[in-house]
């Protein structure tokens, strides 16, 4: 499925289940997403992470709602399953779509200005380097006997200094490779939204609406 359409569908459904309180629909969504990512061959370590980490907030919300909520145990379960529905919905997108494809389709099919699509993509591709840089900043502070915490302004200051420098370099590099802002572009790789994408999108969306309308529990 086209990554842009998929993301839109996932976010729309996630938004909808935030406003509705159907335990059954949440479980169906989790099951369907689960099957989808299994078909796409996800490894078991990732699956374990997907189930393990959300356990804490899910149980936390459940218990507090159970003890202090006025809506009873059913609503507590709704919140519990809602967290997992978010996670599995998100996983159907993040585990099967590449961010490059997303940027390409957002530019070509969703009319996002190319400077946003490619600018953000360029920054995202620096992610491994950014993680490294955060480590470097922390380590070099340690060498001066300073410990940077998540609340240390200097940590962010140094991160921003790197950002300023890198953004300048990246923008210049892109310009020197022939990227011109606000000019029409031709594309080496063309991503289209196909008829099948539309059918899948509308079909799944309608099914979710019908379920939310019919299944109230």
């Amino acid at each position, binding site marked *: 499925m086209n990554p842009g359409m998929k993301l839109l569908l996932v976010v729309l459904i996630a938004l909808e289940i935030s406003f509705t309180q159907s335990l059954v629909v949440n479980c169906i969504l989790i099951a369907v997403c689960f099957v989808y990512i299994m078909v796409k061959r996800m490894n078991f370590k990732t699956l374990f992470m997907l189930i393990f980490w959300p356990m804490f907030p899910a149980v936390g919300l459940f218990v507090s709602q159970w003890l202090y909520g006025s809506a009873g145990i059913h609503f507590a379960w709704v919140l519990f399953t809602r967290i997992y529905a978010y996670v599995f919905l998100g996983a159907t997108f993040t585990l099967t779509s590449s961010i490059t494809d997303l940027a390409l389709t957002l530019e070509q099919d969703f009319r996002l200005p190319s400077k946003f699509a490619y600018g953000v993509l360029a920054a995202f591709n620096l992610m491994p380097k950014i993680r490294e840089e955060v480590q470097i900043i922390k380590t070099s502070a340690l060498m001066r006997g300073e410990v940077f915490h*998540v609340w240390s302004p200097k940590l962010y200051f140094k991160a921003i200094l790197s950002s300023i420098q890198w*953004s300048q370099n990246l923008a210049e590099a892109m310009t020197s490779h022939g990227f011109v802002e606000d000019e029409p572009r031709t594309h080496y790789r063309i991503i289209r939204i196909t008829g099948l994408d539309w059918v899948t999108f509308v079909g799944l969306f309608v099914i979710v609406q019908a379920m939310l309308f019919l299944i109230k529990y």
Partner: protein
Amino acid sequence: MENNSQVNHKQHQSKWTLRNIILIALIAIFTGVIFWGIGFLYTALTVALTPIGAAPFANDILMGIWCMAGPLTGFMIRTAGSAFLGEFLGAAVEVFLGGQWGAGAFISGLVQGIGSELGFTFTGYKRYDWWSLNASIFTTVVVTFAWDMIKNGYDKFALPLLIGLFITRYISTFIFGGIVTKMIVKLLDRSNAFNL
């Protein structure tokens, strides 16, 4: 860099140039990566608070940290939409790093982005000072709290608990979105690395 063209500290408007877009994205990713590292802190807090049913407090205590990218980018790149983009991308990073929120983080990003953007909208993108930063904090707290009333079922709690959660969130957002952001901006201003 453009800092030598303007020596005086007159406030200026920024533009949506390629460089500024990349800058916002980079700052968002940096903050996203830094916050991702405290995921365990959130989990630990949640575990500690769950037995007394106070787990939502973990969310509210840390809310300010998650909402830092917005005020920061909004304050640095002075144009409509920059706070929103920074905050939204910061949340999106968590999704791709494999955070525990899944699609929920995209939506939280949208909500938090709108929250921090509104503060700058209300001050007309003209003022960039302690006042507009506080406006942004206020709108962030109100918007994200309203969202949690729906999404995390806060609306089913009794009023005292609700007030407690709101105050916790306000303090957290004030410390991180306000005081820490202010200190970062001050460092930037003094270093002359960026023309604020």
